[in-house]
């Protein structure tokens, strides 16, 4: 009896580990930022090099920080969703224009619509490193106290928006 049970048991354990392990998405690196204060920065705005923005200015508001670039194809995929979100006035969105050319960024927004309250310009990607950005687009949900509550790596899909982002925004705003 043991002869058959033991291999069967080992097989079951292996199968369970593989089932879970292979189901994980290796691109979704658990972010160490959840529950931590959003790193401070001060950057010039995309449309107005003279004006500065720092996350401090958003204190008291629930907001999204969306990392985008004109060279990023996946950003184009999620862009209509952001435009729609902005039109419905659900949540203020700040864009972080990442490793881009200023003219390219501005032209891109003119062409595809500008859902951002404002965009900041990070041509060197320094703020990107501080936020642990490695795959554009990335989106951070930041609460009234300036704490990062959720991070999406990769484009926001309608499913992610409805199931993960909107409920969290509602909860934080409520």
């Amino acid at each position, binding site marked *: 009896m043991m002869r058959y049970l033991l291999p069967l048991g080992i097989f079951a354990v292996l199968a369970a580990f593989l089932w879970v392990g292979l189901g994980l998405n290796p691109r979704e690196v658990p972010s160490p930022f959840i529950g931590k204060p959003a790193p401070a920065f001060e950057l010039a705005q995309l449309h107005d090099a003279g004006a500065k923005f720092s996350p401090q200015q958003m204190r008291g508001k629930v907001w999204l920080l969306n990392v985008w670039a004109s060279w990023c194809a996946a950003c184009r995929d999620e862009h209509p969703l952001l435009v729609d979100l902005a039109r419905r006035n659900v949540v203020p969105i700040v864009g972080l224009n990442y490793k881009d050319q200023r003219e390219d960024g501005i032209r891109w927004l003119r062409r595809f619509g500008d859902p951002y309250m404002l965009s900041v310009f990070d041509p060197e990607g320094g703020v990107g490193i501080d936020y642990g950005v*490695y795959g554009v687009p990335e989106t951070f949900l930041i609460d009234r106290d300036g704490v990062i509550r959720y991070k999406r790596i990769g484009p926001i899909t309608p499913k992610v928006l409805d199931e993960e982002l909107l409920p969290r925004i509602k909860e934080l705003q409520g």
Partner: protein
Amino acid sequence: MRRRFAIALLLFCASALASANPEQEARVKALSESLRCLVCQNQSIAESNADLAQDLRGQVERMVQSGATDDEIIGYMVERYGDFVLYKPPVKPSTYLLWAGPFLLLLAGMAVFVRVLARRNRAAADAPLSDEERHRLEALLQEDAEGERR
């Protein structure tokens, strides 16, 4: 000829400048090799040519030059990218199985090995002869005895 010499001299100066501090350079190299590139996941940031890897290499270099310790630099990266950037995962409850796993498997393998050996020894020692074996044994003994008598 003179131009070629000038170019050679220039190259020599450039390489001398680049390796102004071999000790720091070695540290940058070692650190870069221990950090995983997040974009291309199976390469270290020393190997990868991805944009992000280049940026992170630059960051490591700047930090080394400004006198940060290895621990500070590793800490800086982990703070931003999580344990995932480390090729050598830290020992903590969620990784105990990872670290202990190979040794547990080795122990299990040894236990099975010892048991199989013991069982085989016991089988060889205690097993009574089957009828067939007994006939063969008798035949052999008889042959032997006949051989000696001759």
